[in-house]
């Protein structure tokens, strides 16, 4: 029963993709949207069915044997447990809302069919990723997500910058994928299986905790997760990925793609527990990404880029949680983040469409009256992002993370987390103020066309807004029993203190932001315009210069070598015999000058040479 529901849940998007792909332009925009949205809607229903019929524990269903050579026996098989169901719910639920909103957002765009085909495939791949019972099938979904992101980021393909962004997203995540692949090779070699359950069972038996192999395997898997989840240093693709339509950004950031890394590490928790050093590294990377992205978000002018960096920052929180062994907290934050980030993106989308594709904060402003729904979405989503105490979902999940960090005695990480909370307040307020308050910066912002469609515009925003409040935190079931014990579960001392601290940080952030952006605007602008402040601004605006660094270290040498090798120097070397032959030919043909005398000369020369050689040979050659 449940197996059926699960199969249906990922079959619907697949069928949707196929219908859309092979319609070859015969479907109109409405029909395409209907198919595209409908298939995900059905998937969401199927997921709901699965959730309802789920009886606990892990249930599996094997469709067929994929490959079978010796020990290498990956199957096309699904495994469903609580984690899977949570992920599925997020993917299909939030995904459905995003699809629905896209029906409004994409109205009048060319290539709706292509858009929905990709979107459906995206959902399908992500579902496969979370459903796969072995790492190879997971990898299949993993790569599929990458491909779909490529197709969607490069959706407006006629602008080559978008193509570049898509390209970058794919290649950077592919670098992570290669690490994951290597991890797979190592795991298979050591454990002889790719089945996740078996791996988790066998790894502790075969590997010493902290052994090199375990560390290496965890490290490689982590590499894969970093790429997909846009953590330092493989994060550079994420801001550029904003080139796609906004619903795509929402899908990538909220429901799919970037959460894959978190899911992977949570899924392979047993593996990481065997490698404490790597666990710590996960936390550190999360903390680093958190801070780095928060600072970068402060200096952005494009609303979508602010959101992008905020995503990176929030994923940093999740990694932080994973790093301290609080897998449940990480997934919790993943879920709430999915709600409010989807809300924020969709609201941003509403603003952008209403203002005729204007997304520069400098050119927006003063919209709060004219776009009330979007404003509402931003307020609620922003509050959740800032983790406004008690009323928002974000507060509960973030608090959990910080508590776990504290419980794990990772004071450093805790401080970073708190600092991040302050910064979050700063950039969120800056974003909302810049977009909705103040003077409009352009004609587009002065005369926006608000969305009016209740079903495709208001409904998704409202639903997500509701989920972003404490209700969202409420409906999270808690997966504690699936994971190894988190540090915070054994003790409760200091939890209250922490909560106060967290609340304080969030409110401090907001207060600081209010003071800075409302009272000291001028002073702030002056600082940002000259001297060290300007340099810092530039540095933050370019997200600490990672792009420039990679450009110098990787891209340019690569381009240089491509240019150098373009003419295939090895082949040129191999052509040397041909050149030699040509030279010899020229020389020999010169001797064929047609003169009998010189023919005789050459002949006599040959004879003489032989005779002289004979005369000089020891004993006359005898």
């Amino acid at each position, binding site marked *: 029963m449940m197996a059926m529901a699960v199969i249906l849940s990922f079959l619907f998007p697949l069928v949707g993709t196929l219908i859309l792909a092979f319609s070859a332009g015969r479907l109109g925009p409405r029909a395409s949207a209907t198919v595209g949205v409908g298939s995900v809607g059905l998937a969401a229903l199927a997921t709901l069915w699965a959730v309802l019929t789920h009886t606990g524990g892990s249930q599996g269903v094997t469709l067929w044997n994929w490959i079978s050579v010796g020990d290498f026996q990956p199957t096309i098989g699904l495994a469903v447990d609580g984690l899977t169901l949570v992920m599925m719910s997020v993917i299909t639920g939030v995904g459905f809302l995003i699809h629905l909103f896209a029906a409004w957002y994409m109205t009048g765009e060319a290539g709706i069919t292509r858009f929905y085909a990709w979107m459906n495939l995206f959902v399908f791949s992500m579902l496969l990723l979370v459903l796969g019972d072995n790492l190879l099938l997971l990898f299949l979904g993993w790569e599929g997500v990458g491909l779909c992101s490529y197709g969607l980021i490069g959706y407006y393909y006629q602008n080559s910058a978008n193509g570049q962004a898509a390209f970058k997203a794919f290649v950077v995540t592919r670098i992570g994928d290669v690490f994951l692949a290597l991890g797979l090779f190592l795991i298979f070699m050591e454990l002889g299986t790719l089945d996740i359950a078996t791996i988790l069972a066998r790894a502790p038996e075969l590997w010493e905790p902290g052994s090199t192999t375990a560390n290496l395997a965890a490290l490689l898997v982590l590499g894969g997760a970093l790429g997909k989840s846009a953590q330092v240093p493989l994060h550079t693709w994420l801001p550029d990925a904003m080139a796609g339509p906004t619903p795509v950004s929402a899908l990538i950031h909220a429901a799919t793609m970037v959460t894959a890394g978190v899911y992977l590490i949570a899924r392979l928790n047993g593996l990481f527990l065997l490698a404490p050093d790597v666990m710590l590294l996960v936390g550190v990377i999360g903390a680093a990404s958190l801070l780095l992205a928060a600072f970068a978000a402060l200096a952005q002018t494009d609303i979508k880029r602010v959101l992008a960096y905020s995503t990176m920052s929030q994923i940093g929180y999740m990694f932080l949680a994973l790093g301290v062994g609080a897998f449940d907290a990480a997934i919790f934050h993943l879920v709430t983040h999915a709600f409010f980030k989807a809300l924020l993106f969709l609201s941003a989308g509403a603003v952008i469409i209403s203002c005729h594709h204007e997304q520069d904060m400098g050119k927006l402003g003063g919209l709060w009256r004219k776009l009330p729904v979007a404003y509402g979405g931003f307020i609620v989503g922003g509050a959740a992002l800032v983790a406004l105490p008690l009323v928002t979902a974000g507060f509960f999940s973030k608090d959990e993370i910080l508590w776990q960090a504290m419980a794990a005695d990772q004071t450093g990480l805790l401080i970073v987390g708190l600092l991040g909370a302050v910064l979050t307040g700063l950039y969120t307020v800056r974003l909302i103020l810049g977009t909705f308050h103040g003077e409009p910066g352009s004609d587009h912002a002065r005369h926006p066309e608000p969305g009016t469609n209740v079903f495709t515009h208001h409904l998704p925003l409202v639903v997500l807004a509701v989920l972003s409040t404490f209700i969202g935190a409420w409906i999270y079931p808690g997966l504690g029993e699936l994971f190894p014990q988190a540090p915070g579960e054994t003790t409760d001392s200091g939890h209250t203190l922490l909560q106060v601290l967290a609340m304080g940080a969030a409110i401090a952030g907001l207060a600081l932001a209010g003071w800075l952006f409302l009272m000291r605007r001028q002073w702030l602008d002056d600082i940002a315009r000259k001297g060290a402040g300007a340099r810092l601004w530039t540095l933050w605006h370019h997200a600490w210069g990672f792009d420039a660094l990679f450009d110098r270290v990787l891209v340019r040498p690569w381009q240089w070598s491509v240019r150098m090798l373009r003419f295939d120097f090895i082949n040129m070397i191999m052509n040397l015999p041909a050149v030699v032959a040509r030279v010899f030919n020229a020389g020999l043909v010169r001797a064929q000058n047609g003169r009998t005398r010189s023919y005789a000369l050459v002949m006599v020369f040959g004879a003489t040479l032989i005779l002289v050689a*004979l*005369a000089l040979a020891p004993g006359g050659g005898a």
Partner: protein
Amino acid sequence: MELAFYLSSLVAVLATVGVITGTNPVHAIVYLIVSLIAVALVFFALGAPFAGALEIIVYAGAIMVLFVFVVMMLNLHPDAEREQTWTHPRYWLGPSVLALVLLAALVALLGQGGVGETIDGELLTAKAVGMTLFGPWLMVVELSAILLLAALVTASHVGRRSNPLRNNENRGGTP
């Protein structure tokens, strides 16, 4: 005997040098005849009078007359020969040195080996040669007869002066 051998050898060599360096065809032919006669004397000195006689009759007599005849027929003059340049060392040095080196190599090889046979000038009569030729060598003689026939046919064909079709000449040799 020995003296005759070396003396006529010297004459033969000198006359031959005259042949290859001469510019006047008729002079060169005369030099060649001298050289051939000198070689014939060498044959006599070696004890092969039959060979010597044939050398004079056939070579100096018949073949050289043919040369003279052709030279007369073509009415060649010394100036007709366009070898102005050949006095320049650049043109004769290489081939001459090559020929000398070859000679040196041959002489060196001749000096290295050998069976120590000497020629004591014992006479070998024409009869012995004839017995050989018309005994076991009969087939060879027949073959040389065909050789002469072939030469005859070739010479008669190539030597044709008149063209059967005058305009034919234009056809050939177009590049």
